């Protein structure tokens, strides 16, 4: 027991090592939140391009670009994408690691969010679309007033799940030297030559956030189901 106390002090209290975890968590959360925003915005645009093409046959060229984009992003590991963004696309030492990470995870998430939105839009019965058009709404108005609100409600669970996945995926940001939560624990390990406690602490923090998020999502889902009209 004594040795646990010593080890705890050595790993977290001495030289304020706990700050590696706090600052790392901050970085992890910043990357996740910004990447989610990029992912949702870009993913939405891609989904609209893809579904508009499927429904109307228009936007052929944009649809082709979108399809290639989805295939490439979903067909390669996110770590490789991260390395390419940092060492090939950014490729100069003054660039911000954090920005590189945000962009990578944002662009990566967009591909998955796009497919979530797309399946949501396609899940809305075509009769809804036709009813909108028959009232005189144009394509865009029909989408905005009638299709998107229903589609969005349908995909909220999948979308929330993507946030959880993304949060965990950002743990590879350390590959290019971003000091996120995982890297924070790893730095402590390299200082104290003690692996168990710092990594356990990191795992507990991820687990806690994921558990809270999951709980919030299921609450939201229940609320949505109750207001299911």
């Amino acid at each position, binding site marked *: 027991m004594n040795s646990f106390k010593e080890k705890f002090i050595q790993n977290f209290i001495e030289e304020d090592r706990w700050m590696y975890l706090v600052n790392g968590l901050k970085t992890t959360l910043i990357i996740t939140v910004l990447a989610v925003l990029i992912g949702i915005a870009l993913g939405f645009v891609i989904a609209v391009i893809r579904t508009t093409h499927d429904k109307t046959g228009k936007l052929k060229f944009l649809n082709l670009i979108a399809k290639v984009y989805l295939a490439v992003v979903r067909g390669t590991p996110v770590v490789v994408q991260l390395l390419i963004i940092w060492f090939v696309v950014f490729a100069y030492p003054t660039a911000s690691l954090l920005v590189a990470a945000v962009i990578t995870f944002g662009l990566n998430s967009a591909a998955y969010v796009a497919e979530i939105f797309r399946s949501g839009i396609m899940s809305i019965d075509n009769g809804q679309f036709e009813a909108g058009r*028959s*009232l*005189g*709404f144009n394509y865009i108005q029909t989408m905005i*007033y009638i299709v998107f609100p*229903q589609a969005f409600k349908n995909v909220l669970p999948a979308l929330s799940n993507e946030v959880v996945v993304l949060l965990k995926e950002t743990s590879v940001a350390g590959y290019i030297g971003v000091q996120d939560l995982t890297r924070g624990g790893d730095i402590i390990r390299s200082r104290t030559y003690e692996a168990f406690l710092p990594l356990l602490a990191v795992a507990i923090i991820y687990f806690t956030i994921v558990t809270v998020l999951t709980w919030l999502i299921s609450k939201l889902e229940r609320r949505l189901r109750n207001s*299911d*009209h």
Partner: protein
Amino acid sequence: MTTNKETLIQVTDLQKSFKNLDVLKGITTDINKGDVVVVIGPSGSGKSTFLRTLNLLEVPTSGTIMFEGVNITDKHVDINIHRQKMGMVFQQFNLFPHMTILKNMTIAPIKLLKKSKEEAEAKAMELLKRVGLEDRAEAYPSQLSGGQKQRIAIVRALCMEPDVMLFDEPTSALDPEMVGEVLQVMRDLAKDGMTMVIVTHEMGFAREVANRVMFIDEGVIMEEASPEDFFNNPKSDRLKDFLSKVL
């Protein structure tokens, strides 16, 4: 055809193919103001396709449709403007499930006709009263019976103050005991002088309300007549055969 009648929709040699399936093979007819045209025919004969080309939900392969003097099959015409004047009622109701009944009825007049919320709601409430559903204004579609949904779908279309109403088998998805209430709304509408084109299997309704009955078979209008002639003196063998099966 008498000349004192104003032509509302003029259909000329309308053809529609899906890939290599020719569904409409040249349909020519006039829909006059105040007409109640009932369209009947075997399953798959192209009745729905014909109705849906009238407001361009299906784009014709060839032929023209003049609506109120405008060739709406012309690519340069803004079809959305003209659709506002053509109400449509679907077999599956297609109410918007995420909106209340009142919102279902007012969203188009507010967004498209630029009516004020008060004005649109007043009109909607008046129509709801006419179909006996004014107490359901704040309900959601999932809380209504099929017959109620279809009556709402009809008045939702009426909120746009259309010049013609298109019905595609409006009672086919209903439990038998709810058919009557929907037909009653349509009967009242006809009495008020609304121009209507109705695809239906309700022969009694056709006999009673229509002024013209049209038999579509194999993509053409095989026969057309007043209800009396249509049901009592069918001319073509196809129609005789069809009527012997459904009557």
